[in-house]
Protein backbone atom coordinates (compact mmCIF):
# COMPACT_ATOMS: atom_id res chain seq x y z
CA UNK A 1 0.00 0.00 0.00
CA UNK A 2 2.81 2.41 0.86
CA UNK A 3 4.19 2.06 -2.66
CA UNK A 4 0.83 2.96 -4.20
CA UNK A 5 -0.12 5.63 -1.63
CA UNK A 6 3.01 7.10 -0.02
CA UNK A 7 0.92 9.85 1.61
CA UNK A 8 -1.83 7.50 2.86
CA UNK A 9 -5.14 6.80 1.21
CA UNK A 10 -7.90 7.83 3.63
CA UNK A 11 -7.97 11.51 2.68
CA UNK A 12 -8.17 10.60 -1.00
CA UNK A 13 -11.07 8.25 -0.45
CA UNK A 14 -12.99 10.49 1.95
CA UNK A 15 -12.35 13.54 -0.24
CA UNK A 16 -13.59 11.66 -3.29
CA UNK A 17 -16.71 10.51 -1.45
CA UNK A 18 -17.41 14.11 -0.42
CA UNK A 19 -16.98 15.34 -3.99
CA UNK A 20 -19.39 12.61 -5.05
CA UNK A 21 -21.78 13.65 -2.29
CA UNK A 22 -21.73 17.19 -3.67
CA UNK A 23 -22.46 16.12 -7.25
CA UNK A 24 -25.06 13.60 -6.05
CA UNK A 25 -26.74 16.22 -3.85
CA UNK A 26 -26.80 18.67 -6.75
CA UNK A 27 -28.66 16.05 -8.81
CA UNK A 28 -31.08 14.93 -6.11
CA UNK A 29 -31.92 18.47 -5.03
CA UNK A 30 -32.06 20.24 -8.39
CA UNK A 31 -31.71 17.64 -11.18
CA UNK A 32 -28.61 19.46 -12.44
CA UNK A 33 -25.51 17.69 -13.73
CA UNK A 34 -22.48 19.16 -12.02
CA UNK A 35 -19.56 19.33 -14.44
CA UNK A 36 -17.35 22.35 -13.92
CA UNK A 37 -15.87 23.29 -17.27
CA UNK A 38 -19.08 24.79 -18.67
CA UNK A 39 -18.65 27.52 -16.05
CA UNK A 40 -15.77 28.94 -18.08
CA UNK A 41 -17.79 29.28 -21.27
CA UNK A 42 -20.83 30.55 -19.37
CA UNK A 43 -18.73 33.37 -17.91
CA UNK A 44 -18.06 34.67 -21.42
CA UNK A 45 -21.79 34.93 -22.03
CA UNK A 46 -21.68 37.91 -19.66
CA UNK A 47 -19.23 39.92 -21.75
CA UNK A 48 -19.19 38.57 -25.32
CA UNK A 49 -21.98 38.97 -27.87
CA UNK A 50 -20.53 36.15 -30.00
CA UNK A 51 -23.37 33.75 -30.89
CA UNK A 52 -21.73 30.71 -29.33
CA UNK A 53 -21.72 32.28 -25.88
CA UNK A 54 -25.31 33.50 -26.12
CA UNK A 55 -26.83 30.03 -26.37
CA UNK A 56 -29.40 29.21 -23.68
CA UNK A 57 -27.25 26.37 -22.37
CA UNK A 58 -24.86 29.05 -21.14
CA UNK A 59 -27.07 32.09 -20.50
CA UNK A 60 -29.77 30.10 -18.74
CA UNK A 61 -27.35 28.18 -16.53
CA UNK A 62 -24.74 30.76 -15.60
CA UNK A 63 -26.53 31.87 -12.42
CA UNK A 64 -26.34 28.47 -10.77
CA UNK A 65 -22.88 27.81 -12.21
CA UNK A 66 -21.61 30.98 -10.53
CA UNK A 67 -23.17 29.92 -7.23
CA UNK A 68 -21.64 26.45 -7.67
CA UNK A 69 -18.20 28.02 -8.27
CA UNK A 70 -18.57 30.23 -5.21
CA UNK A 71 -19.42 27.08 -3.27
CA UNK A 72 -16.19 25.47 -4.48
CA UNK A 73 -14.14 28.39 -3.21
CA UNK A 74 -16.05 28.53 0.08
CA UNK A 75 -15.77 24.78 0.62
CA UNK A 76 -12.01 24.85 0.18
CA UNK A 77 -11.88 27.86 2.50
CA UNK A 78 -13.80 25.94 5.17
CA UNK A 79 -11.24 23.16 4.83
CA UNK A 80 -8.42 25.68 5.25
CA UNK A 81 -10.01 27.11 8.41
CA UNK A 82 -10.86 23.80 10.02
CA UNK A 83 -7.95 21.56 9.04
CA UNK A 84 -5.23 23.62 10.66
CA UNK A 85 -3.12 23.04 7.58
CA UNK A 86 -1.14 25.92 6.10
CA UNK A 87 -2.33 27.48 2.85
CA UNK A 88 -1.20 25.37 -0.05
CA UNK A 89 0.85 27.31 -2.58
CA UNK A 90 1.96 25.57 -5.74
CA UNK A 91 5.51 25.70 -7.00
CA UNK A 92 4.57 24.70 -10.52
CA UNK A 93 6.10 27.26 -12.88
CA UNK A 94 3.79 30.10 -13.97
CA UNK A 95 4.37 29.34 -17.66
CA UNK A 96 3.15 25.79 -17.06
CA UNK A 97 0.05 27.05 -15.25
CA UNK A 98 -0.71 29.60 -17.98
CA UNK A 99 -0.06 27.43 -21.01
CA UNK A 100 -1.40 24.25 -19.42
CA UNK A 101 -4.49 26.10 -18.25
CA UNK A 102 -5.10 27.53 -21.70
CA UNK A 103 -4.75 24.17 -23.44
CA UNK A 104 -6.83 22.38 -20.80
CA UNK A 105 -9.56 25.02 -21.00
CA UNK A 106 -9.69 24.84 -24.76
CA UNK A 107 -9.69 21.05 -24.84
CA UNK A 108 -12.27 20.61 -22.10
CA UNK A 109 -14.69 22.94 -23.84
CA UNK A 110 -14.11 21.33 -27.23
CA UNK A 111 -14.71 17.95 -25.65
CA UNK A 112 -17.72 19.10 -23.65
CA UNK A 113 -16.31 17.99 -20.33
CA UNK A 114 -13.30 17.67 -18.04
CA UNK A 115 -12.33 15.53 -15.10
CA UNK A 116 -15.65 16.34 -13.45
CA UNK A 117 -17.93 16.44 -16.51
CA UNK A 118 -16.65 13.30 -18.20
CA UNK A 119 -14.80 11.79 -15.24
CA UNK A 120 -17.48 12.02 -12.58
CA UNK A 121 -20.80 12.83 -14.26
CA UNK A 122 -20.12 10.97 -17.51
CA UNK A 123 -18.77 7.82 -15.87
CA UNK A 124 -21.56 7.90 -13.29
CA UNK A 125 -24.15 7.92 -16.07
CA UNK A 126 -22.27 5.08 -17.82
CA UNK A 127 -21.70 7.01 -21.03
CA UNK A 128 -19.31 5.36 -23.45
CA UNK A 129 -18.10 8.66 -24.98
CA UNK A 130 -17.17 9.90 -21.52
CA UNK A 131 -15.34 6.68 -20.67
CA UNK A 132 -13.32 6.98 -23.88
CA UNK A 133 -12.69 10.66 -23.17
CA UNK A 134 -11.37 9.81 -19.69
CA UNK A 135 -9.06 7.10 -21.02
CA UNK A 136 -7.78 9.44 -23.73
CA UNK A 137 -7.11 12.41 -21.46
CA UNK A 138 -5.45 10.19 -18.87
CA UNK A 139 -3.17 8.84 -21.60
CA UNK A 140 -2.18 12.22 -23.05
CA UNK A 141 -1.79 13.71 -19.57
CA UNK A 142 0.51 10.87 -18.46
CA UNK A 143 2.65 11.28 -21.57
CA UNK A 144 2.81 15.08 -21.17
CA UNK A 145 3.60 15.02 -17.45
CA UNK A 146 6.43 12.56 -18.01
CA UNK A 147 7.89 14.43 -20.95
CA UNK A 148 7.72 17.86 -19.31
CA UNK A 149 9.62 17.86 -16.08
CA UNK A 150 10.49 21.39 -15.07
CA UNK A 151 13.46 22.02 -12.77
CA UNK A 152 12.58 21.60 -9.12
CA UNK A 153 10.54 18.46 -9.51
CA UNK A 154 7.37 20.18 -10.67
Amino acid at each position, binding site marked *: MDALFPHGYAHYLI*GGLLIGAGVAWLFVSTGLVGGISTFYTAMWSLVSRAPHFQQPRFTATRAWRIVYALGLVAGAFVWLLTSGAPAVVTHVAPWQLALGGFVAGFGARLSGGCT*SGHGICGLASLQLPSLLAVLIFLATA*IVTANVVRAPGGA
Partner: protein
Amino acid sequence: MRPRALAFVLIAGLLFGYGLALSTMIRPEVVLSFLRFQDFGLLLVLGGAAGVTLLAYRFAPRLMRRPLAGDAFGVHPSALNARTLGGAAIFGVGWGLCGVCPGPAIAGLGAGNAPLVVALIGMLAGAYVQGRWFGD
Protein backbone atom coordinates in the same frame (compact mmCIF):
# COMPACT_ATOMS: atom_id res chain seq x y z
CA MET B 1 -33.91 29.65 -10.58
CA ARG B 2 -35.59 29.78 -7.19
CA PRO B 3 -33.61 30.87 -4.13
CA ARG B 4 -34.12 27.49 -2.47
CA ALA B 5 -32.61 25.71 -5.47
CA LEU B 6 -29.65 28.10 -5.51
CA ALA B 7 -29.10 27.40 -1.80
CA PHE B 8 -28.99 23.68 -2.64
CA VAL B 9 -26.47 24.41 -5.41
CA LEU B 10 -24.31 26.29 -2.92
CA ILE B 11 -24.34 23.30 -0.55
CA ALA B 12 -23.30 21.04 -3.43
CA GLY B 13 -20.44 23.38 -4.27
CA LEU B 14 -19.34 23.49 -0.64
CA LEU B 15 -19.13 19.70 -0.46
CA PHE B 16 -17.30 19.55 -3.80
CA GLY B 17 -14.81 22.25 -2.81
CA TYR B 18 -14.18 20.78 0.64
CA GLY B 19 -13.62 17.37 -0.95
CA LEU B 20 -11.19 18.77 -3.50
CA ALA B 21 -9.20 20.45 -0.74
CA LEU B 22 -9.23 17.48 1.65
CA SER B 23 -8.14 15.11 -1.13
CA THR B 24 -5.29 17.53 -2.01
CA MET B 25 -6.47 17.70 -5.63
CA ILE B 26 -6.03 21.48 -5.35
CA ARG B 27 -2.28 20.83 -5.25
CA PRO B 28 -0.99 20.42 -8.82
CA GLU B 29 2.06 18.61 -7.42
CA VAL B 30 -0.18 15.78 -6.20
CA VAL B 31 -1.93 15.48 -9.57
CA LEU B 32 1.42 15.46 -11.37
CA SER B 33 2.76 12.80 -9.01
CA PHE B 34 -0.19 10.63 -9.99
CA LEU B 35 0.48 11.19 -13.67
CA ARG B 36 4.11 10.16 -13.00
CA PHE B 37 3.02 6.95 -11.19
CA GLN B 38 4.34 8.08 -7.81
CA ASP B 39 1.01 8.21 -5.96
CA PHE B 40 -2.21 6.59 -7.12
CA GLY B 41 -4.50 8.55 -4.79
CA LEU B 42 -6.22 10.38 -7.65
CA LEU B 43 -7.84 7.11 -8.71
CA LEU B 44 -9.43 6.81 -5.26
CA VAL B 45 -10.75 10.37 -5.54
CA LEU B 46 -12.18 9.83 -9.01
CA GLY B 47 -13.53 6.38 -8.16
CA GLY B 48 -15.11 7.51 -4.90
CA ALA B 49 -16.71 10.55 -6.49
CA ALA B 50 -18.00 8.69 -9.55
CA GLY B 51 -19.26 5.82 -7.37
CA VAL B 52 -21.39 8.01 -5.11
CA THR B 53 -22.66 9.99 -8.09
CA LEU B 54 -23.54 6.79 -9.93
CA LEU B 55 -25.81 5.75 -7.07
CA ALA B 56 -27.63 9.09 -7.22
CA TYR B 57 -27.94 9.02 -11.02
CA ARG B 58 -29.28 5.47 -10.95
CA PHE B 59 -31.70 5.59 -8.07
CA ALA B 60 -32.91 9.16 -7.67
CA PRO B 61 -34.99 9.14 -10.88
CA ARG B 62 -36.56 5.83 -9.81
CA LEU B 63 -37.32 6.81 -6.25
CA MET B 64 -38.35 10.42 -6.78
CA ARG B 65 -40.81 11.86 -9.26
CA ARG B 66 -38.75 15.03 -9.50
CA PRO B 67 -35.81 16.71 -7.76
CA LEU B 68 -36.45 18.39 -4.41
CA ALA B 69 -36.31 21.83 -6.04
CA GLY B 70 -36.40 21.32 -9.77
CA ASP B 71 -38.60 20.18 -12.61
CA ALA B 72 -36.70 17.22 -14.03
CA PHE B 73 -33.56 15.14 -13.72
CA GLY B 74 -30.95 16.11 -16.31
CA VAL B 75 -28.45 13.96 -18.14
CA HIS B 76 -24.82 14.60 -18.99
CA PRO B 77 -24.72 15.08 -22.75
CA SER B 78 -21.81 13.49 -24.53
CA ALA B 79 -21.57 12.36 -28.13
CA LEU B 80 -19.18 9.85 -29.61
CA ASN B 81 -17.41 12.03 -32.14
CA ALA B 82 -14.10 13.67 -33.02
CA ARG B 83 -14.81 16.76 -30.91
CA THR B 84 -15.37 14.79 -27.73
CA LEU B 85 -12.36 12.54 -28.20
CA GLY B 86 -10.01 15.09 -29.79
CA GLY B 87 -10.93 17.68 -27.17
CA ALA B 88 -10.19 15.12 -24.47
CA ALA B 89 -6.75 14.48 -25.96
CA ILE B 90 -6.02 18.22 -25.98
CA PHE B 91 -7.39 18.63 -22.45
CA GLY B 92 -5.04 15.90 -21.24
CA VAL B 93 -2.01 17.66 -22.70
CA GLY B 94 -2.88 20.84 -20.82
CA TRP B 95 -3.76 18.97 -17.62
CA GLY B 96 -0.49 17.05 -17.77
CA LEU B 97 1.43 20.26 -18.28
CA CYS B 98 0.00 22.17 -15.30
CA GLY B 99 -1.59 19.56 -13.02
CA VAL B 100 -4.69 21.71 -12.65
CA CYS B 101 -8.18 20.85 -13.88
CA PRO B 102 -11.13 23.24 -14.07
CA GLY B 103 -12.59 22.46 -10.63
CA PRO B 104 -9.39 22.78 -8.59
CA ALA B 105 -8.45 25.98 -10.47
CA ILE B 106 -11.49 27.54 -8.80
CA ALA B 107 -11.52 25.71 -5.46
CA GLY B 108 -7.77 26.09 -4.90
CA LEU B 109 -8.19 29.83 -4.54
CA GLY B 110 -10.29 29.24 -1.41
CA ALA B 111 -7.43 27.32 0.17
CA GLY B 112 -5.00 30.12 -0.48
CA ASN B 113 -3.35 28.66 -3.57
CA ALA B 114 -3.13 32.07 -5.21
CA PRO B 115 -0.84 31.08 -8.13
CA LEU B 116 -3.72 28.95 -9.47
CA VAL B 117 -5.32 32.19 -10.64
CA VAL B 118 -2.83 31.99 -13.51
CA ALA B 119 -4.28 28.62 -14.52
CA LEU B 120 -7.79 29.99 -14.04
CA ILE B 121 -7.12 32.88 -16.41
CA GLY B 122 -5.52 30.46 -18.88
CA MET B 123 -8.64 28.28 -18.80
CA LEU B 124 -10.91 31.27 -19.33
CA ALA B 125 -8.80 32.25 -22.33
CA GLY B 126 -8.91 28.70 -23.68
CA ALA B 127 -12.69 28.59 -23.27
CA TYR B 128 -12.95 31.90 -25.13
CA VAL B 129 -10.87 30.76 -28.09
CA GLN B 130 -12.87 27.52 -28.24
CA GLY B 131 -16.24 29.25 -28.13
CA ARG B 132 -15.30 32.13 -30.42
CA TRP B 133 -13.64 30.22 -33.25
CA PHE B 134 -14.19 26.51 -32.67
CA GLY B 135 -17.76 26.44 -31.33
CA ASP B 136 -20.26 23.81 -32.39
